[in-house]
């Protein structure tokens, strides 16, 4: 089985889809000739030509607007937004248009449209290369929001997203493009090659959207996480010696509520993690759902560990990032209460 890091796996997902379906087109800023600033689309233009893989002007609203038109025409549009911090100029086209066109035309048009974007911090990118905007899309009915946490999932989920007939926001945790991250910035970066999820088949496979995975089984507390935070959760549980069940949500809308309920009913405790700012983050929704649906199984309030309610500060990044210390303390506290 080939071993791939997340970038290679994502690249392979594009390749597989473009090979199978001539209707797939890939575009974005620096995506074509150069292959993307994170190299996710490297080699595609050479292989599939400039008509199907191309650079765009720097106008995220134009990228998504044009992508909607292409999808309405019948293509499968795969657009990259260079950093998810720069997705806001496209926000109107996403929430007012992409999310609503199937509904407002009563199904006359549907949009096979995937918007990929690296998100999250941990690379000293400062406040405009570190954001986690997933909650904003989770609040937009009609959008599907997917966040992978490893190469195998990344490829399978991206193929599923591309093949979906609905618009998908596909957020890629850039901190773990090249290796899983345990929340210890002081340690050298571990490569993906040592991780079992780096074994990625060459060909076509999908991971269904809306299905979570159990990233670590346990029985004392349920940790809900996605993206980079899945790895931080596992490390923290290991370090604290806590029998935590870590659920990798993979898709945040639609959510795999069964997996969540099943685990929380079993453990009676729940910790929710994300890197995004706390207030109004998706953790609020998760906490609300868990207590609505598992209240009488809960032995303690659902806890959240998140980024702080400030911009992501460049040099203070590692005081901002919800790393192993913050998660570890929360796990301990949750088990004590």
């Amino acid at each position, binding site marked *: 089985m080939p071993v791939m890091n997340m970038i290679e796996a994502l690249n392979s997902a594009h390749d597989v889809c473009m090979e199978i379906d001539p209707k797939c087109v890939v575009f974005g800023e620096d995506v074509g000739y150069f292959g993307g600033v994170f190299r996710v689309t490297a080699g595609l233009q050479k292989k599939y030509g400039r008509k199907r893989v191309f650079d765009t002007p720097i106008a995220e609203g134009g990228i998504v607007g044009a992508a909607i*038109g292409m999808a309405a025409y019948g293509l499968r549009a795969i657009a990259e937004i260079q950093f998810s911090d720069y997705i806001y100029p496209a926000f109107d086209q996403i929430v007012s248009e992409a999310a609503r066109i199937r509904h407002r035309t009563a199904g006359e048009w549907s949009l096979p449209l995937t918007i990929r974007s690296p998100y999250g911090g941990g690379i000293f990118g400062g406040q405009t290369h570190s954001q986690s905007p997933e909650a904003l899309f989770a609040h937009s009915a009609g959008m599907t929001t997917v966040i992978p946490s490893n190469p195998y999932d990344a490829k399978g989920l991206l193929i599923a997203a591309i093949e979906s007939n609905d618009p998908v926001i596909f957020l890629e945790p850039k901190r773990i493009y090249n290796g899983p991250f345990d929340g210890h910035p002081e340690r050298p970066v571990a490569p993906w090659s040592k991780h079992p999820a780096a074994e990625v088949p060459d060909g076509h496979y999908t991971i269904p959207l809306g299905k979570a995975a159990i990233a670590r089984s346990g029985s004392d507390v349920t940790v809900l996480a996605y993206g980079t935070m899945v790895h931080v959760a596992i490390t923290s549980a290991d370090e604290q010696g806590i029998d935590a069940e870590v659920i990798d949500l993979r898709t945040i809308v639609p959510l795999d509520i069964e997996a969540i309920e099943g685990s929380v009913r079993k453990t009676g405790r729940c910790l929710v993690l994300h890197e995004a700012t706390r207030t109004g983050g998706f953790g609020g929704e998760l906490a609300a759902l868990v207590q609505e649906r598992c209240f009488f199984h809960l032995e303690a309030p659902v806890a959240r560990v998140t980024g702080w309610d400030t911009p992501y500060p460049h040099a203070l990044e590692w005081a901002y990032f919800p790393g192993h210390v913050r998660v570890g303390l929360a796990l301990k506290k949750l088990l004590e209460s």
Partner: protein
Amino acid sequence: MAAKASEIAQLATALVRVLDDDGRAVGAWNPQLPTEALVQMLEHMLTVRIFEDRMFRAQRQGKTSFFLKSLGEEAVAVAGTHALDADDMTFPTYRQPGILVARGCSLIDMMCQIYSNRGDRLKGRQLPVMYSSRAHGFFGISGTLGTQCPQAVGWAMASALSGDTRIAATYIGDGATAEGDFHHACVFAAVYRAPVIINIVNNQWAISTFSGVAGAELTSFAARAIGYGIPGIRVDGNDALAVYSATQWAAERARANHGPTIIELFTLRVEGHSTSDDPSAYRPQQSAADWPLGDPIDRLKRHLNVTAGWDDARHAALIERITSQVRTAQREAEKLGSMGAGDVLNFAHEVSSMFDDVYETMPWHLVEQREQMLAELEAAVSCQ
């Protein structure tokens, strides 16, 4: 095409006209259309006008929540559509029902949308006049201004890269050209030489503000084209032949892979913005006789008068025929209900249909919410 291209630079600030004051078609832009084609255009324009007049009154009678006319702008949508192929795609605003009429959409179908009634294909989801009709190459209207422009460009890019010969035409109001989406559309259209026509419908008003607030005092809207290296043509939008001809020119250019064209259609929003608007608060009343460019229907009629012996009797007969069609359509449409027909809780549509089409397959949370809603409605009934 080449001959006209040499005039391009000036065309952005000139005003292309074909019909002169005597109703004659003059100059290089005369499309030389056969009489039947002109009569059909006239019929479509009249249909729009009579249709809108009736629907406006229906709204005033409380039969629907909202309505909006294109009075005075009928040539823009109708003549432009006549110059396109039937399967070219359009991305309009709310002010181009003429596209649907010119493409033979049933009036009943349009009325049902306006009434949000049982016959409304959009299931009561959309505000009146926010039509959608894939069968007529008419993209579902958004309430959000400007968004359709880059979408049209994307559709045209997709057509071109698929080796398709269909082109796209989009429409945007003078006011909405200030939105970033208009700019994105122009940049993408220029860079990818997309086969698209970007029509700026300059009806001189954006709700209460005159076009100067969108920049019209400094130059024309067609001049925007120059900055993108796109041909821009400013056209008398109340001159059906000029609209036809400019559109035809742009469509041929696009189909021959020469890229996009921006057409400014200079016209006038004769009445209020919509039924929610009272224009007397911000501008003086005008009578049809005072419309600066003349009534587009009168002007085409005069042309037919002069060139094809179209007389008042035939005109009156045409109006009568259309009026009766519209009346019949209205009766039929109203059989399927209207918004004001019952109380506000008497829904024309299966209420649970609102959960359809949010996604291709309904996720669990929508299934749960749908059940909750049905239980709630039952409870509401049992309370009464």
